[in-house]
């Protein structure tokens, strides 16, 4: 008993370190969010309580950015999940020619996000881009990917999906590899079709892993910044201005209180999303 208690003391430095790294900045940020603090007027800092939060809730630009963030998160997660699942199911088949293609599929994951976004910005360029060139050759015209609000959102979703489908594929594929083959054999013997086997065996057994992957990607996309900044800058208009882009704009103009309030609200929204998804995950156990 005494030795167990004394072992626990060894955790203390690590816990203190984590608390300092995580909690101190968070508490500081929370504190700053209760002030009206504009860097341009350093002597006019005053406590306003929840004034920044109420201003944000009433601000149409903030509400718009929350909606844009939700649309981007939902759209990107759905595309990545479905594509990752399809690829994982395909690579679960015993075809030898698929093995070398696994490395090719993984490649976008190794591209630095800013580099990838810059590359796609060139590909989607209305005059210099290869995509527009080949689409016009095929008779589809030359869509203004980054100038049209709807197309810009679609472009963002697809570029983000391009980069992170490999992650979904990896996680789901790893999960598929652990499923016992006997279940599928038994199902085949009982006359179940491929679709029935997928619905009644694969989905229930993989639900936990799939939800974890969705949770991780959802949190990442909700806080995405670099790809959006490089590809659209939040435009056209505010069609792709997410909470992070708005926060960057507010922070850049020196409104510290407001910027920190946006950060705290982001934390709350991500925590809420995590809570709901984790509840769904735990229900599958």
């Amino acid at each position, binding site marked *: 008993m005494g030795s167990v208690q004394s072992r626990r003391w060894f955790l203390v430095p690590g816990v203190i370190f984590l608390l300092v790294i995580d909690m101190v900045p968070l508490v500081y940020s929370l504190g700053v969010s209760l002030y009206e603090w504009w*860097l*341009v*007027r*350093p002597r006019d800092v005053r406590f306003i309580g929840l004034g920044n939060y109420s201003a944000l809730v009433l601000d149409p*630009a903030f509400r718009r950015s929350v909606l844009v963030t939700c649309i981007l998160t939902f759209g990107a997660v759905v595309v990545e999940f479905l594509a990752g699942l399809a690829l994982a199911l395909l690579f679960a088949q015993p075809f030898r020619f698929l093995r070398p293609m696994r490395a090719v599929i993984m490649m976008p994951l190794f591209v630095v996000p800013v580099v990838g976004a810059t590359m796609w910005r060139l590909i989607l*360029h*209305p*005059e210099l881009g290869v995509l527009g060139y080949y689409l016009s050759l095929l008779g589809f015209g*030359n869509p*203004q990917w*980054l*100038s049209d*609000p709807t197309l810009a959102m679609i472009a963002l979703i697809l570029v983000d999906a391009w980069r992170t489908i490999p992650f979904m594929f990896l996680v789901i594929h790893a999960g598929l590899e652990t499923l016992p083959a006997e279940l599928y054999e038994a199902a085949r013997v009982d006359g179940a079709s491929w679709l029935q086997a997928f619905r009644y065996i694969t989905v229930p057994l993989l639900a936990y892993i799939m939800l974890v992957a969705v949770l991780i990607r959802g949190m990442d996309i909700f806080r995405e910044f670099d790809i959006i900044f490089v590809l*659209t*800058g*939040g*435009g*056209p*208009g*505010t*069609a792709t201005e997410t909470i992070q882009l708005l926060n960057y*704009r507010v*922070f*850049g*103009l*020196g409104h510290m209180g407001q910027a920190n309030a946006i950060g705290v609200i982001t934390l709350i929204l991500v925590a809420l999303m995590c809570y709901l998804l984790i509840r769904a995950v735990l229900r599958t156990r």
Partner: protein
Amino acid sequence: MLAGMMAVLAAMALSFAPDAFAQAKTLNLSMLAGFKEDVLRANLPDFERRTGIKVAVDAAPLSELYKKQLLSLSTGARHDVLFMDEPWVPALSEFLLPLDERARGIDMQDFIPTTVDAGAYQGRQYTLPVDPNVQILVYRKDLFEQRGLKVPTTWEELLQAAKALHDPAKQQYGIAFTAGSDVQTPLYMTLLMWSYGAELVDARGRAGVNTDAGKKGAEMFLELIKVAPPAVKSFTFADVNKAIQLGQAAMAIQWASGAKPMEDPTRSSVAGKLGYALVPKGTRQAPMRGVWTVAIAKNSPNLEIAWEFAKWLSGREFGLASTRYPSAISAIHCARVSVLSDPGTKQALPYADALLGNLKLAKGRPRLKEYPDIQEHMRVTASRLTAGELSLDAALKEMDAGINKLLGK
């Protein structure tokens, strides 16, 4: 053994000493990336050789430079000297060294007067002018002559000329400018609104955009988009240049500094075919003044060498060199009359007369601490208008409401 250790320690200390001394004569400069940076870097070795002062250049794109300078200055002067756009001077003046006393030791009379005003705020001189810039009209002389068109003097004439020269099937467009999320977009919108008599902030200190004059300017802006390249809503400063250089646009409203690369035969297919004129008028002629200046952080530990650099950057020698340098994207002119009227300068800058003519009429942006926020609000609202998120009336209402909110009205 002890003597040996002491010798080693002494040698280590001596090896660090020159670096420590060199650091005392190193300046940190906040500079604009991409535009004008090549001009500065090409001439820096000359300054460093003559003064022994090393300059560490920290460059940031235009869209990020104000943010970087604000954060740097407000948190303790990581930069000693700053290449600063004139509308930022009021907001950042809190953190800048007033230069009134020091300026008495240099020839301030040689500066174009309006460029000196660009660095002043509430009666104090905070910056020295380096690069006087103003919006000008660039047009294809050859195309105008072919069609028998006269150089437009009003926006209505410009629109008619643009329509006459607009042929998308041949990738020929009437006029190039920016109309999307780019930082230049609110400046074009403001230019047009000014031309018809509107003010961003009126004499009462309230927003003056949602007026008949403001609406007329915004309507003209939307009309010009119809005769611009299809990608105008994702254009940047560099894209406007490219549209002229590739021979795609018959006209452009561009900052004068962008005209230099348009005349570079190694970069432009229309070098020698361009004409330059005053910005068209609506009810008045009001080209926008945009002077780049040099400022010193008041908390800098290197005030004296920072002043040496500021004098050099705004001086005649750098001015003569910079006006002749073949910049890739954007020139650095010189704010000194003696340099701009030099015959060599007029040869290097074919648009020098248009530059000086427009400067005489140029209008400065509101000298307010809130101005960077106002411009950012205009940028977002203008891009929402051109993206179709807002109707014209709603956009004007939002511009006004946002400006009044920022001014606390």
